[in-house]
């Protein structure tokens, strides 16, 4: 750990801003805000422990903390749920963690113009518990729906399991207030009106401040979309004898044009084998079932009922066998609980060991899925040949786009890692594998990440390649908005923006 810049007088200033009950410099508070679920090299935990944690309650407090950090040149790392699968919330250079969990109020519910205004520390499940009595919901539905927070969803530009129907975070957040890296508070949206969904005024700044992984500021308030609470949900799971058929069927289902279709999910053979092997909640199917495709629809009963008939017909006509109501409804209902279900994987000799779940994601076009899949499994297989602590848990491909879910897919490969045995050599090999996985995505015309963010070790090295000329723009934006490199420094290779020294 480097010598701390957070001295006692700085802590006194922070207490002056946030109050004595909301500033924490004790070891436990700091150690527990160093990590996110995965991937986090547990053997290097000590390197990421921040110097102090603050839990502000107002936007003004956040602004004052950031201004203080600029005065003292102290890194600031925003933290919402800390549930991200990239390392946006991991402090790389210690400093001040601004944890927004206490900012979890609903500020305004507007049932006429269909918006709800919230603070960034609120969770979607909790928000919907309040909203459902008014017949509306906020349909941002990631796997982490019961625990992730609105602020983190914006910071990572999150992806929703039902985004095909309702849109993803960027479509569902109408506008928001953000503290810039120099401490100023501004509102960004599509133009200026806080509840306006579409505008042609000025630059579209909302998108700039989505998915920046904490490098461009801290969201302090957001206006969210409300949709009618769906009357009907329909889920259908189909089985297939081989990947080729399942992949073609996935494409046909996604191109169906059914407006109520919320998503199509393809499970490959490795995923099926893994579920059979180690997921006790998975309802076993005959051995000749090699792949599964899951679909779900939401809307009014009048739309969903006939739509479901057509969806079932497409599934069957393209080689799928309907797996029945129990599997379809049960598996879909437990979609949140079942992300990262396992707390174990296997060594090659079959020995069960506790493993953590690491998920590499990318955006890949439908035509490229089969080739990418082969290459990704090969990379993980080679990794497993060298180190016994890695286990291939198979792949999913989810329809990726909002409202017209046919062109590209959130593609993920799940890898179990026995972290208790992790050392520098295995970690370095893992980082290399991640870089290789990202390189495959780019080579096939895809994008390194569909939903997690691409700032983790390994894959981040290829971000300049993916962005092309846009990478220079990114660096310029970063340097202009954050002249002292205060906001989450070290992330996204953005230190390169300052290579000739701070401006």
């Amino acid at each position: 750990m480097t010598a701390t810049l957070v001295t006692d007088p700085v802590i006194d200033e922070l207490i002056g801003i946030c109050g004595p009950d909301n500033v924490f410099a004790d070891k436990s508070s700091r150690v527990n805000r160093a990590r996110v679920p995965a991937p986090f090299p547990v053997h290097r935990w000590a390197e990421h422990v921040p110097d102090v944690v603050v839990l502000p309650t107002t936007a003004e407090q956040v602004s004052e903390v950031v201004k203080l950090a600029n005065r003292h040149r102290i890194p600031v790392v925003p933290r919402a749920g800390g549930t991200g699968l990239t390392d946006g919330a991991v402090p790389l250079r210690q400093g001040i963690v601004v944890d927004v969990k206490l900012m979890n109020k609903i500020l305004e519910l507007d049932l006429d113009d269909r918006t709800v205004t919230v603070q960034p520390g609120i969770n979607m499940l909790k928000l919907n518990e309040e909203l459902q009595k008014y017949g509306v919901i906020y349909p941002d539905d990631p796997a982490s729906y019961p625990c992730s927070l609105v602020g983190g969803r914006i910071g990572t530009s999150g992806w929703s399991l039902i985004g095909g129907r309702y849109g993803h975070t960027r479509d569902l957040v109408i506008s928001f207030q953000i503290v810039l890296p120099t401490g100023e508070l501004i509102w960004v949206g599509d133009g200026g009106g806080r509840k306006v969904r579409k505008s042609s005024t000025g630059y579209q700044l909302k998108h700039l401040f989505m998915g920046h992984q904490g490098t461009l500021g801290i969201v302090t308030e957001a206006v969210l979309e409300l949709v009618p609470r769906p009357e009907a949900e329909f889920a259908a799971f189909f089985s297939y004898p081989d990947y080729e058929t399942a992949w073609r069927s996935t494409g046909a289902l996604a191109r169906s044009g059914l407006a109520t279709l919320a998503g199509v999910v393809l499970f490959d053979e490795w995923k099926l084998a893994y579920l059979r092997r180690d997921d006790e909640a998975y309802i076993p199917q005959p051995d000749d079932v090699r792949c599964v495709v899951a679909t779900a629809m939401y809307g009014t009963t009048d739309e969903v009922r006939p739509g479901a008939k057509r969806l079932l017909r497409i599934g069957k006509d393209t080689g799928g066998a309907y797996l029945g109501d129990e599997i379809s409804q049960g598996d879909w209902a437990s979609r949140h609980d079942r992300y990262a279900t396992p707390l174990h994987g296997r060594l090659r000799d079959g020995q069960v060991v506790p493993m953590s779940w690491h998920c590499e994601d990318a955006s890949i076009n439908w035509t490229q899925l089969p080739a990418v899949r082969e290459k990704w499994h090969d990379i993980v297989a080679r990794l497993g040949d060298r180190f016994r602590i890695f286990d291939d848990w198979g792949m999913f491909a989810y329809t990726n786009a909002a409202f017209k879910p046919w062109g590209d897919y959130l593609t993920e490969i799940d890898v179990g890692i026995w972290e208790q045995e992790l050392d520098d050599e295995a970690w370095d090999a893992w980082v290399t594998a991640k870089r290789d996985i990202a390189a495959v995505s780019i080579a096939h015309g895809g994008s390194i990440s569909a939903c997690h963010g691409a700032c983790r070790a390994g894959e981040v090295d290829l971000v300049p390649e993916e962005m092309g000329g846009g990478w220079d723009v990114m660096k310029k934006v970063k340097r202009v908005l954050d002249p002292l490199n205060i906001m989450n420094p070290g992330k996204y290779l953005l230190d390169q923006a300052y290579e000739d020294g701070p401006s």
Partner: protein
Amino acid sequence: MSSTERADGPAGGTEEEFVQEWRNAAYNCYSSGHKFCREVCPVMQVTRNEVHTPTAFHANVVAMEKGLLSIADVARDYVHCTGCGACELRCPNTLFTGDFYRFRTRTVQLVKAVRALAVDQGIHQPGWQRWVEETSRQKSEPVLGGEVPVSQEHVRDWAAGLDLPTGGETILFCDCEGAFHRTSVPRAAAKILKAAGVEFGLMREQWCCGGPAAEMGYVERAKEFARHNVDDWRAVGAKRIIVFDPHDYISFTEDYPNYFGDEFDFEIVLFVELLAELIREGRLPLTNPVDRVVTYHDACRLNKRKGIHAAPREVLRAIPGLTFKDVDHVTQWSYCSGAGGGLPIERPDLTAEISRRRVERAAELDVDTLVSACVWSERPLTEQGGKRADPIEVLDLLEIVALSAGLA
């Protein structure tokens, strides 16, 4: 793989032994990192502080193994748990791997184990230390603001005029809060049993069940209470113990068998389950209409720890005149009174806020009465219910049944 065989609660010993015992269980939480537990945790819902989460409670063990934290760094964090068990239910590890590997996330046991380790290492929470010392001195908990002074002399005062025998095959165990504070609950219990023709007696000398001491980390003290109570039951030939307090029910069905093994062969009967049976069989006629609009507060230790949520509802539905606005027991995983796990002693501010929010939920249903089946929850809930502009009264399930049975 599974650590369930070994990690069986507070064992005492060194930090190293503790870490060895819990490292896999802790890692199983750390490695999944879901944090689904967080928004159902009644404490976390109030403090929003990550160090009060079940995730942190497990991650700390991993950090201790890595030498990043010691028990002294984290002992105070573990005060922030009511032992309600919601996190265990919400944990996908419990939901999806439980059957095959017999694995269950056991945050409540982990919290008890850390508290025990802290006490073993000489790290005390001042309120808990005083509470346990006072309990050891008086043999009952130092229940505050009680109707009768806490001492062995007065432990049966609640039963004045009821003419209850001592001993016999069936013993009614009265917890400390009932004996010294909300005496109407044990009185209702005794009257109900008599009216239904259930023969029972009281203990010769009843001590605290020891559960609170165990929860605060004072395991040896807890065992002393347990030993005394078991010996007293044995001395009067008891075979069956009836308890109305869910906390006692946990002590007798989890802690005592753990302390005594096969020697512990008593049948433990939960009052509310017996009550449902008595009503069902027509042995306790509920004839007086009770003109109230009520909702039921699922006692955490019944609903979340023991899966008991049907019997109390069956009882309420049997009361004539009552309008019962029920809230699903799964929705109530995230509800709590904040009265458990020693929290009201060290953080009464949190208990009050958790109770305030629980009463608020009841108020949204336009009820006049919140019915609970946990005597410990009733003090903070009553306080918060009474503070409202439109007060909500808190009644114990036994109190409201006694009203309907004409026993009040």
